[in-house]
């Protein structure tokens, strides 16, 4: 009996030490070569602020891109489509709360994960949008620049959210992009490229707003948990 207890205790200690080790190790930053290196430490609060800034900028630029595209390529008759574009957007695998009350009841974890999923879901479609916009004859440079910028910023936003998740939620490395969510599937009836692009931009604009809102809510909870959590 004593021999079994010792034998059982030893793997627990190993696991525990491993666990401690993973937790205790500071955030490792990977440079471009992929080698692990010590990186400058940043507080969680500042990281969250920077993530929120990213989300705000992305939301604003997406709105400007949508407006530019609408003015340039979308006839007046179709402009109301934005309001109706809710059902044209991709439906997520999970339901996202869509009211303030529901959002206030959602946990931080869920918020962060939602943000991460959204960011990861839009990286590829925006790259695709970039190629389609280049095919337009008279696409303004401002529109192209903005979409390019948004694509770049999404990647850094993803990185930040990943670190944030790890920091705030004490979770380990997550897989980059869960499959199934990322696939962007446009409604089959929307065949025209212009409408397709317009729908894509509108949906992205909405999701950017969501991300911004989620992160701000998260921020509020960090500072004033009681005030923000209350209804």
């Amino acid at each position: 009996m004593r021999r079994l207890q010792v034998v059982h205790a030893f793997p627990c200690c190993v696991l525990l030490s491993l666990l401690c080790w993973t937790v205790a190790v500071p955030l490792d930053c990977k440079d471009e070569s992929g080698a692990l290196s010590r990186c400058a430490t940043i507080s969680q609060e500042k990281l969250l602020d920077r993530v929120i800034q990213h989300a705000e900028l992305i939301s604003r630029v997406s709105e400007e891109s949508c407006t530019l595209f609408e003015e340039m390529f979308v006839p007046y008759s179709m402009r109301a489509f934005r309001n109706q574009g809710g059902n044209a957007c991709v439906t997520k695998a999970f339901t996202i709360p869509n009211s303030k009350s529901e959002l206030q009841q959602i946990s931080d974890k869920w918020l962060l994960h939602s943000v991460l999923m959204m960011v990861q879901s839009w990286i590829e479609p925006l790259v695709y949008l970039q190629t389609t916009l280049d095919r337009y004859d008279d696409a303004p440079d401002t529109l192209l620049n903005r979409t390019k910028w948004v694509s770049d910023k999404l990647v850094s936003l993803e990185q930040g959210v990943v670190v944030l998740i790890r920091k705030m939620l004490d979770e380990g490395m997550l897989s980059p992009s869960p499959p199934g969510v990322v696939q962007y599937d446009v409604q089959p009836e929307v065949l025209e490229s212009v409408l397709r692009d317009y729908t894509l931009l509108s949906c992205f604009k909405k999701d950017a707003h969501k991300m911004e809102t989620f992160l701000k809510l998260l921020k509020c909870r960090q500072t004033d948990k009681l005030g923000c959590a209350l209804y």
Partner: protein
Amino acid sequence: MDKTRDTPVLPHFTGCRSREQETFRCWWSAGTFSNLSEPGALVVFFQMKNTPLSDWQECPEYTATVENECYFSKTFTHIWTSYCVQLRATAQNITYDEFCFTVENIVHPDPPVGLNWTLLNVSRSGLNFDILVRWAPPPSADVHTGWMSLKYEVQYRQRNASHWDKLDLESGTQQSIYGLQTDKEYEVRIHCKMSAFHNFGEFSDSIFVHVAPIPSKESVFPTMVLLVSGVVGLLILLMLVIFSQQQRLMVILLPPVPAPKIKGIDPELLKKGKMDQLNSLLSSQHMYNQDTYREDPWVEFIQLDLDDAGEKSGSSDTQRLLGFTRPGPKGDDDSGRASCYDPDLLPDAEGLLAAHCEMEEHHPLVSESGPSTPSPEATDAPFLPFRTQPVGQSWINMDFYAQVSDVTPAGGVVLSPGQQSETPGMNPDEKKKKGEDAGDEEVEKEKKLQLLVVGSDGGYSPEVVARQVESSAPYSPAPENAYHALPPEPGEEPQTWSVGYLVPDGEAQAPYFLPEAPPASVLPPVSDYTVVQEVDGQHSLLLNPSAPQSPACPPNPTKHLPSMPAVPMGYLTPELLENLSP
């Protein structure tokens, strides 16, 4: 609502709005369908376009206080969700209008509250100022939790302006307004919108900004500097103008006074004493013509009054004098001329005579009488025009001056032949010289040498003296020639002058002035010319007693003659006269 015959307006939604992204309302209108305006006639159904399409639900709450309003509470408000509302008639199954939207796109935030301003600073000139405007987010908007991110826009205008100036969107709760003008009242207002959306909310109440201008010394200083510099600049400009246009201004302001000027005569000539040129100029004028000697009418009338030839032998002298005519073809008696030619001319007189002779044109002493029409007996014209003979030798040789040889007790001056400055004895000499012309001379004698009458009372004019030297060639023989000078009565003596050649009457008492040409040392025993030393009260000339040929010494002792310069042309200048005057 138009209830005219216009096209009927269907019931429709007038709008849906959300103030805080948590609730929203929709309003509709019955249009021209008045029967549907009754409450309950129209109903609203909505549907959320989620993945599992929900059913159409009727309006959760019709606002009791507001007509035709459907209120969606928080429970029914879902953002990032598409809504569609329909306006249906209760009775019939007719859908008049449908309107689809997402809540975040219909959010119009409430206006910010607590708008106030504070003065930042006033410019140095006191004309402009800056203010800082502060506000608070609308209380309905949950910006604290981050539910809504608002952007604010401040607008301002002057009190009575119609256009609002807009500032850039501001995320914070304060903003500065720069460049406002003092003593003007401004109106400031603010509204806001969701960060990534377009819908602005209502404007807040306006606030009024007014800053009184601060009178400062500095504000006055630039004005003074400007004024002073402007005045100085003007003065400098004026001075420049004056200096540049000095000449013109002088002419305008101080017009030159026209000086007395003889037309055509250059004053420079007078200064330099170029008498020749001056004379030539003057001769071209009619005012003063020296050549009038020849043409002067009264010169012409120098007549020899042979009847009243000198009482003494002076008569012979006078006759001789009168007999002096120009030698040559003219054959006129020209005492002067003869004297010129006379080789026996006394050296002392030569100079003078020569000088006189040269002054041919100026001393038309005697003109040729040859061609002159008047004969000695000619009485036709009392004054025959003095024909100016061509300048010939006669003029040169003319003796312009006749020496006074004697003074009669009556006061008359007896002239003696000029060149022979001696006693009356000379006269015969002269006569001899002119022997050939004696006949002519005699003829000439009969001619009246017209003396120029100087009819001035006590006045003496050098011109007259000059003129008197002349003798008219065509001597009008008429003794009663009015122009001849006079045999003045003694009584008249003091009143009139008669200067010039003594009329053959010999009565002329006018003294004859002769400048003393040669120096005293050169004077011959008999000088041809007698220098008048002084004039007595009776206007009689007092001659130089040193002159031997003047036996009749003037009653007054003569004074030592002052050296007198040779006066050309026989003029006695006023200066000379002054020397002689008592």
